[in-house]
């Protein structure tokens, strides 16, 4: 390998030894090797040199420690804490049919909570699927103790009121998937309006439709965001699993 002159003291040094020479003989000098060695020499040096671990400076160690701690703290705050903290799924709200829905009183039953909005087209598509799930004699979920509740987030379009929701439930028709004729939503489970958005915030629901399946202790078993044409099968499987068969 070619020899080069040390840019500090001028002695002739083999290219592969220049870095060590500078480190040992001129430790205080800042020399840019790329200016002294040609690309070819540097490649040759790289090939002959055994891999050595890059060193750390004292200031670098401090900086890395600070960066590491800050990053770890941020990750703990944003990711780990929410994962370890269970959602507060309990709520008590008046329903549009004049009763009160209180989730703590439904302990012991699996609960399906739907976050929806009357003006959300995907919720309108999903409603018949939930009706099928609710009324199906094959599943028989209501008799088996499963509770359903829809929470209107008043998310978009016209303001949703109790009257508007009740009218929609009983008079708005859709094309019934089984018969192809006009069917009504006819959803008999309670509907609540989340006026101040507290319930949606507690659940972390930011869009409609979003469905939570809660187990008998009120803990989230599964969550589905958005419309899914296969919702009946998926939700039925979840509820059957929670009912133990």
């Amino acid at each position: 390998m070619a020899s080069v002159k040390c840019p500090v003291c001028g002695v002739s040094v083999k290219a592969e030894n220049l870095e060590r020479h500078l480190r040992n003989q001129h430790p205080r000098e800042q020399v840019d090797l790329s200016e002294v060695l040609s690309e070819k020499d540097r490649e040759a040096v790289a090939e002959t040199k055994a891999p050595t671990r890059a060193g750390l400076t004292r200031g670098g160690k401090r900086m890395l420690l600070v960066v590491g701690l800050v990053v770890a703290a941020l990750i703990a705050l944003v990711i780990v804490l929410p994962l370890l903290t269970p959602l507060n799924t309990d709520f008590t709200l008046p329903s549009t049919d004049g009763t009160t829905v209180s989730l703590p009183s439904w302990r012991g039953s699996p609960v399906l909570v739907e976050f929806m909005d009357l003006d959300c087209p995907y919720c309108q598509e999903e409603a018949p699927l939930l009706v099928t799930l609710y009324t199906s004699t094959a599943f028989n979920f209501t008799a088996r103790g499963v509770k359903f509740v829809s929470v209107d987030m008043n998310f978009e379009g016209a303001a949703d009121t109790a009257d508007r929701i009740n009218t929609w439930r009983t008079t708005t028709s859709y094309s019934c998937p089984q018969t192809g004729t006009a069917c009504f939503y006819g959803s008999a489970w309670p509907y609540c309006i989340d006026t101040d958005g507290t319930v949606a915030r507690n659940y972390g629901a930011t869009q409609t439709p979003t469905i939570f399946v809660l187990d008998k202790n009120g803990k989230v078993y599964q969550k589905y965001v958005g419309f899914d044409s296969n919702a009946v099968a998926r939700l039925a499987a979840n509820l059957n699993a929670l009912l133990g068969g």
Partner: protein
Amino acid sequence: MARTQLSRGDLLLLNAILAAAGAVVAAYLTYEKLVSFSSSVCDINDYFSCRTVGASVFSAIGVVPTATIGLAGFLVLLALSLAAFRGRERLGPWFVDGWTLLFAVVGALLGLGLTFIEVFVIHAVCILCATGFALDLGILATAVVLRRTS
């Protein structure tokens, strides 16, 4: 004020820390996309909402979540940084620093594109995605410094 001179090892380990943090963030976003049902401080309101961005069509390419691609990228950057820290200089035809720079540039371009889509198309910002983008920019900056000084 005295200016601290960082060594190549400092910068490589800094890159490794940033890449590891990016991998954790991307892994969490993948988890959020696929199975999550926890609340997140990432959902501050309708505009700053990871869930809104995660529910958009841009959050996956086919069946692969975009975050998974980010996870793969950060793991490659982590491996490159650790390899360079342990003394490896070349990988195939290029120096390891060159590969790091290439992956950091690709990651930054993807991050820039996704941030643009969040702001102007989805009209919602995912803070964790933005954090991943910022981490990649940090890696890019140190990769540039490493490339210039190597």
